[in-house]
């Protein structure tokens, strides 16, 4: 039969998807896995790297520090995110939408900008520190655990906030009223009914912040002081000229991945047992609190959100100050912006080009794979879905190292090119787009597409004419989110860049290390404005739905 030979459109897409994930994800990660078993000097297979990583105090300290900042970041984010979600979802808080927007803005600004803004406030010459010293108060040092956990908490709490509030909003208020009718007081009600219902969302948020805290490179690199974590250790092992040790760096990376994986598996297992389906018949209306309680609730909400926006404001403000190296001089002007345009104009172009190129690739392949994941019944679709989870748990530093290890030799020798950076951004952010496409597809009934096929449209045509137009808002929102994260990417770019292919985040990082606060602030402001514009566009596309950002 001729029909049997014709290759189905979706089969082609699946083959392409498997090839791309195989080449950009499985292959590099296998390389790094293999490299972790190779001795650096003898090139013989060995378990020595792991023995050192797990045995030597140097690494044990880094591992311990990673866990401390991971758990610290997670707890901090929950401490800020859960109350904010509970208060804004249940009670009348004036300016709720404004708070949510600010929280999202805090979310999309790169964490290392937060780190460096806090240095400007609480660092050795920080203006807040000097201010407090004048008042006779000795501010705690921002360098070290305090700084890292502070930055992580203020940076990552919006994840917990957004996930928890959308979950709180889907709880049928009748359930809580039923508990009240059965004689449960407010506390019993909260711990016995509400909390178990939002547990999956809150734990997903907690998990996300833990994994992100574990993976983050920029923050500990900038405010870590002498607190080394696994991500910075792997980076230093790989890049330092004298002791460059790919085997050891790879082993450290594998430990980092395994750590994230364990947490993910534990969270998934705990949620599976508590899978509670929302049954939303009636929407809950926020209650009006008494005057005193209301003032307190507003204070808490605004304090949390303003504290998290503070770094961005400080950065924008300082970008207009006159500076000389790390020292701020009196007066305002556009000097810092002029300096960027004079010295490193290409980093802005690079950042824009690489992000846009990678987003274009992400949109095309992401929506197609999203379709396979949402609609596919084959085992390969399930496999794709799990494979796409990998970028969530592999830190940028690790994937960067894996790319260098894999793609600096024939057959694919692309280190030092723009291509490798675009491919890296592409594979790191592809899952976001796949997820948002799949999510919107689940709301489009399959029968609509089948109806198109029964009316004579081939499967490919039915997708283009019917499904794709309906998916568009989801695709655009996913693309904007990918753009925001791509343009702010630091860790992997830092490993892959050469002078020619330097991006804005890399330049900011190097400027901060060199104490060039003025140019760093100006570049950061450009990034913040670009991200803010994209956030605004997401709002506009997805109809003011903050959960589009998670």
């Amino acid at each position, binding site marked *: *039969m001729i*029909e*049997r030979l014709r290759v189905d459109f979706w089969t082609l897409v699946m083959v392409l998807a498997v090839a791309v994930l195989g080449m950009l994800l499985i292959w590099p990660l296998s390389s790094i896995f293999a490299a972790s078993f190779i001795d650096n000097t003898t090139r013989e297979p060995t378990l020595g790297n792991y023995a050192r990583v797990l045995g030597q105090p140097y690494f044990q300290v880094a591992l311990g520090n990673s866990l401390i900042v991971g758990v610290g970041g997670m707890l901090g984010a929950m401490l800020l995110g859960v109350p904010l979600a509970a208060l804004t979802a249940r009670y009348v808080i004036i300016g709720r939408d404004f708070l949510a927007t600010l929280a999202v803005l805090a979310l999309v600004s790169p964490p290392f900008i937060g780190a460096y803004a806090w240095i400007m406030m609480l660092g050795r010459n920080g203006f807040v520190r000097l201010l407090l010293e004048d008042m006779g108060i000795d501010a705690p040092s921002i360098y070290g655990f305090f700084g890292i956990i502070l930055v992580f908490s203020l940076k990552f709490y919006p994840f917990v906030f957004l996930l928890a509030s959308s979950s709180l909003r889907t709880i049928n208020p009748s359930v809580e009223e039923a508990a009240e009718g059965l004689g449960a007081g407010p506390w019993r009600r909260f711990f016995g009914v509400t909390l178990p219902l939002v547990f999956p969302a809150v734990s997903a948020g907690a998990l996300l912040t833990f994994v992100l805290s574990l993976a983050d490179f920029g923050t500990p690199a900038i405010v870590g002081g002498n607190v080394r974590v696994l991500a910075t250790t792997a980076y230093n092992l790989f890049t330092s000229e004298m002791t460059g040790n790919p085997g050891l760096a790879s082993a450290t990376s594998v430990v980092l991945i395994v750590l994230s994986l364990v947490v993910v598996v534990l969270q998934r297992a705990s949620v599976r047992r508590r899978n509670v389906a929302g049954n939303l018949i009636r929407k809950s209306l926020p209650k009006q609190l008494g005057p005193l309680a209301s003032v307190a609730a507003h204070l808490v909400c605004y304090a949390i959100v303003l504290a998290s926006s503070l770094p961005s404001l400080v950065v924008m403000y300082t970008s207009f100050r006159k500076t000389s190296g790390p020292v701020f001089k009196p007066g305002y002007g556009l000097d810092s912006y002029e300096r960027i345009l004079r010295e490193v104009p290409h980093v802005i172009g690079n950042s824009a080009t690489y992000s846009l190129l990678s987003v274009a690739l992400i949109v095309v392949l992401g929506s197609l794979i999203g379709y396979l994941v949402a609609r596919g019944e084959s085992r390969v679709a399930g496999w794709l879905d799990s494979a796409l989870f990998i970028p969530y748990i592999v830190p940028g530093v690790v994937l960067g190292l894996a790319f260098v290890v894999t793609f600096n030799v024939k057959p694919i020798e692309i280190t030092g090119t723009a291509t490798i950076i675009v491919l890296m951004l592409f594979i790191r952010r592809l899952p976001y787009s796949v997820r948002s496409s799949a999510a919107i597809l689940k709301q489009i*009934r399959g*029968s*609509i597409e*089948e*109806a*198109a*096929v*029964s*009316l*004579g*449209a*081939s*499967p490919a*045509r*039915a997708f283009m*004419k*019917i499904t794709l*137009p*309906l998916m568009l808002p989801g695709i655009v929102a996913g693309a904007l989110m990918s753009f925001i994260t791509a343009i702010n990417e630091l860790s992997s770019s830092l490993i892959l860049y050469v002078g020619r292919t330097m991006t804005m985040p890399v330049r900011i990082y190097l400027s901060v290390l060199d104490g060039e606060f003025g140019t760093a602030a100006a570049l950061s402001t450009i990034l913040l404005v670009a991200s803010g514009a994209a956030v605004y566009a997401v709002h506009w596309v997805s109809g003011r739905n903050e959960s589009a950002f998670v």
Partner: protein
Amino acid sequence: MARVDLRRICKSYPGVTALDNVELVVEPGEFFTLLGPSGCGKTTLLRTIAGFNRQDSGEILFDGTRIDTMPAHLRNIGMVYQDYAIFPHKSVADNVAFGLAMRRVARSEIESRVARALDVVQLGGLATRMPHELSGGQQQRVALARAMVISPQILLMDEPLSNLDAKLRVELRDDIRDLQRSLGITTIYVTHDQEEALVISDRICIMQGGRVHQVASPLDVYGRPATLFVASFVGSMNVFDGLSVGPGGEVTIGAATRALPALAGRAEITLAMRPEDVILSRRGEEAGEAIEIEGTVDKVTYAGREAFYRLTCGDGPRLLAHVSRPDQGRLASVGDRLPVALPLARLHAFDPAGGRRVELRP
């Protein structure tokens, strides 16, 4: 208008046999209904005909030509869904025009055919509306016009009325039937609603567990059910399960024993009778021969134009009796003892082992 042949269709999913050797012929122009409880395989069969499932084995022929190797979009089938499946981003007219555009029909012809199709489903004035401005019933009419306008070889409908409220359901049901008859299009209709099936169909195929139990006219399905399953699924039925049979065909129900010669030689039999066939008085002349017992009223359900009594007959069976046109003075109360007559002519018999119908009269 096409004749549809389904030959030995089998389909199984891991752990489930969805279609077990299904063999059916649908005649040209016929309104053919697949009826059964959920999970009986009726939707799977419909989707296999449409080309959205592929059978594991067996053949599907339209007018003698095999079509089961053909991809779904080339089969020229009109399909109507339970959830309407209207394209939400296209206007009513564009929804109806979609199939014609896929067939590269000229624009002017598309316009006139769409207009005619919308008139036929009584939506003439709504061509430029968007789907979200329409009610569920109107959306389903759009779906109907969209499926009909391509002049399909056959029309498939998957529970098209089950998302509508009761009144609309009856209205659209009659319209679908009239439309199908005037166009003479071969139609296969899936439903789990036995009343809908009886009203709308030329023939009904009753399925369960992937197997066909009976294919017959509504009259025969209700009046001469081929299996005990059909008897209890279509309408309600009093079932006297696994009665032992004497050497001469004697059967005992309650206090009465009666010889049914057709049952001679059997050890066991299952008898059944519809509630409306149970007579609650000393048998009149018109009832003919009957099994006569006595029952105590357990429960009275009054529903306006009719009422139901639940009766217990001594140590014997419980049964449900239908009372037409009940009125205040004549309605029994709980505890009343009533004479019960089960006319032999109305008795159904089934083999307790396989559930197949056993004829009581030659």
